[in-house]
């Protein structure tokens, strides 16, 4: 039997106050252990979709099921419990600047019940993102890519079944972005995490995604399987410059 889908959206609509339509009639299923890209131009509904999955925005129609829970039926405590099963990687990372790398990761683990915490979890995840040697550094002492890796470690430390990423590489150069994307794929391969990546960058989709959902004006217009020949392809910054700018 196939494992249940971590995310199921059925005829979901989100209307903001003032009549602005965030999403309309969205049907989308994210398969277990897949990496799904979500792309579209600004205002297409990408962020609304992500906020819907974290419970920050409520659907005004349809149903949103995340890890088996109908988000619309959860009370505050239920929503908090669900959120502890989801990892979120933010574009701006938002690390605690007066806490070390280790403390930034520990704080996420500290929110879980004591019986679910293992002493080695923080060390393991810091090794996984390659920052075990910077555990005692503060965020200001790290590069942008390293900070994003801490953000991924914080999201993964409680071994979530679902990882949501909001433009995780948009502030990074191509090489650093590649390292971050490799981590997302490794997280799926090693921990069996299902990953949803919101991005405007087609290279991100080409690099790591199995499928991609295309949004326009709040509507899901297509879901494509990323061609195996395209998957994993990555262009260096200079190659891209030559291709796009050369005569």
């Amino acid at each position, binding site marked *: 039997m196939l494992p249940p889908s971590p995310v199921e959206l059925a005829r979901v609509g989100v209307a903001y106050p003032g009549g602005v339509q965030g999403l309309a009639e969205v049907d989308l299923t994210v398969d277990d252990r897949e990496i799904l890209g979500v792309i579209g131009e600004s205002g297409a509904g990408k962020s609304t979709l992500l906020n819907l999955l974290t419970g920050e925005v409520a659907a005004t129609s349809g149903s949103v099921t995340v890890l088996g829970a109908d988000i619309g039926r959860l009370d505050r405590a239920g929503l*908090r419990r669900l*959120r502890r099963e989801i990892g979120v990687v933010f574009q*701006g990372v938002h690390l605690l600047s*007066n806490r070390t790398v280790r403390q930034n990761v520990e704080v996420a683990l500290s929110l879980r019940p004591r019986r679910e915490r293992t002493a080695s979890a923080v060390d393991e995840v810091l090794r996984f993102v390659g920052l075990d040697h910077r555990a005692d550094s503060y965020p200001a002492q790290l590069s942008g890519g390293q900070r994003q890796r801490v953000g991924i470690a914080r999201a993964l430390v409680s071994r979530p079944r679902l990882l949501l990423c909001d433009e995780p590489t948009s502030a990074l150069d191509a090489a650093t972005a590649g390292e971050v994307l490799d981590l997302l794929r490794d997280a799926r391969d090693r921990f069996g995490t299902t990953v949803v990546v919101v991005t405007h960058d087609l290279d991100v989709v080409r690099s790591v995604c199995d499928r991609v959902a295309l949004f326009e004006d709040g509507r899901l217009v297509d879901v494509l399987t990323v061609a195996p020949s395209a998957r994993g392809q990555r262009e260096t910054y200079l190659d891209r410059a030559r291709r796009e700018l050369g005569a």
Partner: protein
Amino acid sequence: MTGVEDVFASLGASLAERGDDLLDALGETGYMLGVSLAAAVVFGLPLGAAVYLTRPSGILPQRIVWSVANFLINVIRSFPFLLLVVFLVPVTRAVYGTTFGTPAATFSLCVVAVAVYGRLVEQILREVSPGIPRVAQTLGATVPQTVWRFLLPEALPGLVYALTSASISLLSYSTVLGVVGGGGIGDFALRYGYQEYDDVLMYFTILVILVIVLVIQAVGQRISVRLDHR
């Protein structure tokens, strides 16, 4: 004798006579500052956090709580301090059974300390990136966890620095508490310096207050810088 020697001779004589009173006054000021700062931390910190959390765009919007807390802070802060002391006389009498003496005088200082620090706390929490409480919420943190594990650690250097500023303001406020028998260093300067025409003793006392302010400022700044890793 030269003029300078005269000044030191006069100061020596005054201190020989009033030295014990000066030490008592310093003790009273220390008591008033210590108790009011404790009140600022114990009550002002939660009050400021409550205003921040319950504002319309906060993570726990509660319009009534927010409006009432905001109103109280504004009213207390806009009172000229001496009038606040007078205004609080009935409350002070109800709490202490008297309106006279250092502990009773400290009550009004505590009230203003809570309001002043509460407002500073709210402003500092507003300066924390909105991404920080958002991260806390998406990690499944409760509101108290969001405050204790995310907001306060992020805001700590600013909170310490604000407590420094608050303590300097409170020191200034405390100097008028002589009118209700609060004593303290300000009262000492007025009573034994100004009213007894002992200018040297008065200026010396002002110098002592200045040194206290500079020490508070330096210590607060140093702790704040040490805590700040941005």
